[in-house]
């Protein structure tokens, strides 16, 4: 039987789709990171692809399994896989295996100023820029996420029961303190000004610590787990997924306590699955569970434009190059849009 497609309205492609390139890989996209003016994308079959303006994308067979995590490390990408390998991959595709954890997954990877870290099970392995020997930070439960602050002097490790905050003193000695909150904590990030620490929980809420006085509070009201959240560069807003609106909490002044978030609505009541802030602007790219992506100014009502129309697959990656010239969108169906941000 042949489907009669004439009865469906033919949706026009967005101007970003018209001037960009679309790819259908058919394999779930798990991560993306920006490397200068290139963007690296991780796939569910272990492949990493690097997209560059004006050039063909480069395909690298990195892992024998899912690329679970990815981070930018100068001119390299770090990847962690479900094949137990922690890799450093150069922009031209050279693979360097940093560590092999065997049947244990490498769940999270991070890098700052040439120092690198990954987590496998309950342990975080940390390599200082100057050392080949890892330092091992152990925890009582599996690591849910890790994040360096912008200076690389603090490393937040989320886990069951709270966050372990590792601090490096000026003799490069690491000590830890605990920020406790009942429940299981997953992704964790610092605000860009280093004043706040945010974690997403197994329950449909975020937990936040104001680090100067350790005041903590929950940010709740979501309909599902919050898997993606991102601070604007000035730390004024935290944009979050997990609801049908993009929920943007104000972090200027005394922070979000007692204040209402900005809720940016989208047509169709689809869940927000991915958010990425626009560099140096109070604006956010919002990816929905149906594959559509929008760009919204947070401070201005009704200032939203459509970037990509729906694909029926949840958006799982959005990255913009450092010079803000190109944008990459990926989804769980393996569709990629690589497009220029500005009209030529």
């Amino acid at each position: 039987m042949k489907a009669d497609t004439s009865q469906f309205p033919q949706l026009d492609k967005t101007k970003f789709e018209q001037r960009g390139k679309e790819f259908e890989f058919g394999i779930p996209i798990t991560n993306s990171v920006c490397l200068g003016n290139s963007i690296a994308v991780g796939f569910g079959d272990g492949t990493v692809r690097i997209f560059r303006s004006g050039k063909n994308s480069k395909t690298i067979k990195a892992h024998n399994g899912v690329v679970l995590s990815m981070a930018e490390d100068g001119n390299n990408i770090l990847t962690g896989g479900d094949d137990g390998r922690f890799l450093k991959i150069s922009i031209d595709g050279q693979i360097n295996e940093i560590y092999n954890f065997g049947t244990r997954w490498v769940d999270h990877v991070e890098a700052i100023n040439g120092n690198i870290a990954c987590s496998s099970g309950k342990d975080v392995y940390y390599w200082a820029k100057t050392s080949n020997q890892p330092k091992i930070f152990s925890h009582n439960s599996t690591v849910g996420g890790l994040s360096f602050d912008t200076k690389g002097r603090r490393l937040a490790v989320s886990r069951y029961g709270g966050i372990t905050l590792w601090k490096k003193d000026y003799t490069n000695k690491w000590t830890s303190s605990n920020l406790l909150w009942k429940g299981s904590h997953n992704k964790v990030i610092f605000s860009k000004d280093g004043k706040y620490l945010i974690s997403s929980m197994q329950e449909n809420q975020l937990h936040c610590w104001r680090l100067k006085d350790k005041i903590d509070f929950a940010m709740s009201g979501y309909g599902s787990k919050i898997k993606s959240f991102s601070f604007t560069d000035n730390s004024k807003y935290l944009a979050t997924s997990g609801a049908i609106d993009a929920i943007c909490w104000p972090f200027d002044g005394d922070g979000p306590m007692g204040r209402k978030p900005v809720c940016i609505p989208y047509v169709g009541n689809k869940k927000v699955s991915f958010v990425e802030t626009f560099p140096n602007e109070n604006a956010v790219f919002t990816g929905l569970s149906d594959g559509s992506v929008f760009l919204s100014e947070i401070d201005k009502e009704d200032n939203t434009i459509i970037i990509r129309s729906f694909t029926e697959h949840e958006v799982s990656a959005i990255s913009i190059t450092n010079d803000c010239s190109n944008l990459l969108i990926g989804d769980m169906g393996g569709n990629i849009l690589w497009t220029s941000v500005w009209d030529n």
Partner: protein
Amino acid sequence: MEASNKQVPVTVLTGFLGAGKTTLLNRILTEQHGKKYAVIVNEFGEQGIDNDLVVDADEEVFEMNNGCICCTVRGDLIRILSGLMKRADKLDAIIVETTGLADPAPVAQTFFVDQDVADRTKLDAIVTVADAVHLSTQLTDHHEAEEQIAFADVVLLNKIDLVDESGLNIVKDRIKKINPFAKIINTKKCGVALNEILDLDAFSLKRVLDVEPDFLTSDHDHEHDDDVTSLSFVTDTPLDMEKFQDWFSKLLQTKGQDILRTKGILDFKGESDRYVFQGVHMLMDASPMGKWPEGKDRSSRLVFIGRNLENMNLKEGFENCKSA
């Protein structure tokens, strides 16, 4: 939790150390079935599993802040199942091996509580491997062994060649006292057809309809108050929906820790649909399940497996739900 083609079935393999879980796993994996399975094992488990997709995990039981006092989930499973769902190659099934002393409840509850897990995977069945020689002692000494039997959809009674017939009957009676609804399969060296343990869809509401009234017996003798037993009730009188919901939700809230599993088919007055539910501790999956079959008698059936059931006034509570 209802079945959908997109959900990968997950079989949970429980049983005491030495009962034969590894033998069974290897049998599943080496049989020429042309299917792709992922196996989640734990580091304290038995070694020697031969599969290209073995995932090592620590059993991590997390409490949920959802106001449900006995609600615990397996954090490691949430992490691993969501990772497996990102794979390019689609899995036919996932098999979770638990440690010998594991309580199956957090595993089962994970499929009720975590929306991502429930969207992408479904709990297919809990298969418990039991050692025909040692099960009786294990049941007396370890409450975990009782729980593993109580939660089982299938009990693989292994090593039957090492006990005589009377010994076998004793151990079978013991299993039936705890859980009269589990299917018992006698094996030597875990020799069992895979279609008897995989792809059973035992947790789907449709399967609750298979609970046969003549299968139900009530009130078993038992040795300690702490023993796990089962009770079941049947009535031809239609139930009052409001009364039933009121009684049953209070019951689960207050006694949910002792009630391990529940199943039921309910005939509500004034409703043309059958209502079906099944639950683990305080969590429940319930739905109308189509019209009652034409020409067949309508009746309500309710099954409990748990501890201290005789102190919960279940019979009286159920009777009070009958419509006037």
